[in-house]
C-alpha cells in the first residue's frame, strides 16, 4: 500500500483501521479484572522464570528422607523420594509455561492462516479446509492428544504439536467468521484490482481487521492449552522424572497427601492462579471488545 501509485484514500483508511486494537487494549486495561489477571500472570511468570535462581537445591537433588515435614533445610518439606518440594516447585513452572505458549502460538499461526485462506478463497478450498477442521473438532482434545502419545510416546514436541493442532480449528473458525465480511470490503477489492499479491492482501488488509476477535480467542486458547499441557503431564505423558514439572509433581506427590500435602498443594495453587489469571485477561478483552464494534472504526 505504500507505493506512490496508491490512492490517498485507502492510506488514510489504513491508519484509521489500525486503531481498534489499541483502543481495545486500552479499554480492556481499564477493567479491574484485566489488571488483576495481568498481576496474577506476571506473578506466576516471575516464579517460573526467576524462581529457579532462588531455589535452594536443584530439581533432582536429595534434601532429606521421603515426605519430611517443612523444616529449616526444606521449607516446604520433601517429596516421596526426598527431593526438596520448594526447589522442585520453583523449577517446575518453566516447562508448562513454555510448552503451552508454544502450542498456543503454533495453533494461532496455523489457525489464522487457514481461516484467512478459507475466507479469502471461498468455494471448494474453503469447504475442504473447514471440513478438515471439523474432523479435528470431532475429538475431545485430550483424546486426540492421547492417541498421538500412544503411538509416538511421551515427547515434548509431540505435546506442542498436538495441542497446537487441536487449537488450530477453533482459531480458524473465528478467523474465517470475522474475515468473511472484511473480504467484501472496498479496500480489499481495490487492493485486488491493483494487483497486490495475495499474501500481502491477507496480511496487510484483512488480518489487521480481525485482531479483536482473535485477541479474545487467543487468551481463551492459552488458558485451555495450559490446562491440557498440565493435564497431560499430570497423566505422566509430559516431562519424565526426575525433571521438575508442576503437572508431574501433582501426580508424584498425591499418594503422600495425607502425610505431606505441600508437594501437591503448591503446584495446584500455581496452576489455579495461572489459569484464573489468563482467563481474567481474556474476559477483560472480551468485555472491551463487546463494548466496541471491532469494525466500527474501520470506515
Amino acid at each position, binding site marked *: 500500500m505504500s507505493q506512490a501509485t496508491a490512492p490517498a484514500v485507502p492510506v488514510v483508511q489504513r491508519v484509521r483501521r489500525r486503531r481498534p486494537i489499541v483502543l481495545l487494549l486500552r479499554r480492556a486495561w481499564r477493567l479491574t479484572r484485566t489488571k488483576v489477571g495481568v498481576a496474577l500472570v506476571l506473578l506466576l511468570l516471575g516464579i517460573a522464570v526467576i524462581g529457579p535462581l532462588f531455589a535452594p537445591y536443584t530439581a533432582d537433588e536429595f534434601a532429606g528422607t521421603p515426605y519430611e515435614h517443612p523444616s529449616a533445610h526444606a521449607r516446604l518439606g520433601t517429596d516421596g523420594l526426598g527431593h526438596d518440594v520448594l526447589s522442585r516447585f520453583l523449577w517446575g513452572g518453566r516447562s508448562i509455561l513454555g510448552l503451552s505458549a508454544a502450542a498456543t502460538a503454533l495453533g494461532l499461526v496455523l489457525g489464522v492462516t487457514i481461516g484467512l485462506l478459507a475466507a479469502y478463497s471461498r468455494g471448494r478450498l474453503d469447504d475442504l479446509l473447514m471440513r478438515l477442521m471439523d*474432523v479435528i473438532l470431532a*475429538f*475431545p482434545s485430550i483424546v486426540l492428544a492421547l*492417541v498421538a502419545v*500412544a503411538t509416538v510416546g511421551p515427547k515434548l514436541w509431540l505435546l506442542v504439536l498436538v495441542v497446537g493442532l487441536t487449537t488450530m480449528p477453533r482459531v480458524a473458525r473465528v478467523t474465517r467468521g470475522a474475515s468473511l465480511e472484511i473480504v467484501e470490503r472496498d479496500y480489499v477489492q481495490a487492493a485486488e484490482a491493483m494487483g497486490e499479491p495475495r499474501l500481502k492482501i491477507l496480511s496487510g488488509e484483512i488480518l489487521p481487521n480481525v485482531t479483536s476477535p482473535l485477541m479474545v480467542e487467543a487468551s481463551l486458547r492459552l488458558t485451555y492449552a495450559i*490446562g491440557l499441557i498440565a*493435564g497431560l503431564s499430570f*497423566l505422566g505423558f509430559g516431562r519424565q522424572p526426575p525433571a521438575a514439572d508442576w503437572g508431574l509433581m501433582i501426580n508424584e506427590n*498425591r499418594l503422600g497427601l495425607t502425610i505431606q500435602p505441600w508437594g501437591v498443594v503448591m503446584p495446584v495453587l500455581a496452576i489455579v492462579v495461572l*489459569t484464573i489469571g489468563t482467563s481474567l485477561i481474556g474476559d477483560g478483552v472480551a468485555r472491551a471488545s463487546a463494548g466496541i464494534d471491532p469494525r466500527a472504526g474501520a470506515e
Partner: protein
Amino acid sequence: MLRHGIVGFVVRRTLLGLLTLFLVSIVVFAATQVLPGDPARAILGRNATPESLKTLREQLNLDRPVVTQYTDWLGGLVTGDLGRSLAANEPVTKLIGKRVENSAVLMLLAALISIPLSIVLGSVAARRRDQPFDHATSIVLLALAALPEFVVAIGLVVLFATTVFELLPAVSLIPPDEHAWSHPKDLVLPVTALVIAVTPPIARIMRASMVDVLESEYVEMARLKGLPERTVLWRHALPNGIAPAIQVIALNLAYLAGGIVVVEFVFAYPGIGGAFVDAVSNRDLPVVQALAILIASLYVFLNVFADVATILVSPRLRTSLK
C-alpha cells in the same frame, strides 16, 4: 434443499455426523496403525525379539495391505468386534463392557445435576442482574471455568478426602462385579468434579440469554398483567431463555466425554476414561483405537443432538427450515 423441513434437517445432520465418524475412524486408524511406521516395534520397544515382533504383527494384522487392515478393522467396529487387548489378552469388548456402564453412570449423574443447577444459577443471576449475587456468581463461575478438570479433582481430594477433611474416599474402590450406583460414596467426588467442569459455561450462557428475555416485550406484558415475578421468571421467561442454551448444554455434555478421561484417572474410577489412560501408558493399541472411537462417537452424537435440539426448541429457526 430445505424442502423436507425438520425431518430433512435431522436426516442431513445425521448423515453429516456419520461422515464425520467415518473420517474420525480414518484419523484414528492412520494415527495408530500407519503413521508409526512399524507399530509392533513402537509397542515392544528396543527389547523386541524378531519372534515377538512377528507374533505381534500377526496379531495386529500388520502383515496385510493397509487398506485391508483398515476395512477389516472398520468391519469389526461395525459388527461389535473391537479386537483383542494386547495387555490383558482378552477381547476389548469384554474389557470395556462394565466400564462403559460405570462411565455412563458418572456422566449421567453429572448431567442430571449440572443442567438444572446451571439453569437455576443463570436465571437467578439474570433476574438479579448487576446485584451482588450476579457479580459473585459471575466471578466464581469465570474462575471455575478456567480450572483444568484434574486440578479441580485434586482440589476436591485435598479438601474432602485427605488433607483438610477425610469425609469421602479419595479412590473409587468399586469391585468389577458390582454396579457403580451401589457405591454412592465413591461417586460423590468424581461427579462433583465433572459438575464443576460443565456448570460454569451453561450458567453463563443461561444468564446472557435470560437477560435478553427478561427485557423482551412479552415478559413486560406478563408483568403488566400483574403476574408475580416468580411466575414471570419460571413460567414465561425460562422456556424462551433455554433455547439458546440448548446447544451449549449439549456441547458441554459432549465435553464430559473428554472430561471423564482425567477425572476417572484421578479417582482410579473403573470407567472407560481411566482405561483409556492405562491403554495409552501400556501402548495397548487395539484398546486405544476402540476407546478413541467410542469417545469420539459419543462426542459427535451429542453434537448432532445439540444441533437438532436447538432447531426443535427455537420456533424461529424451525419455521425457517420450511
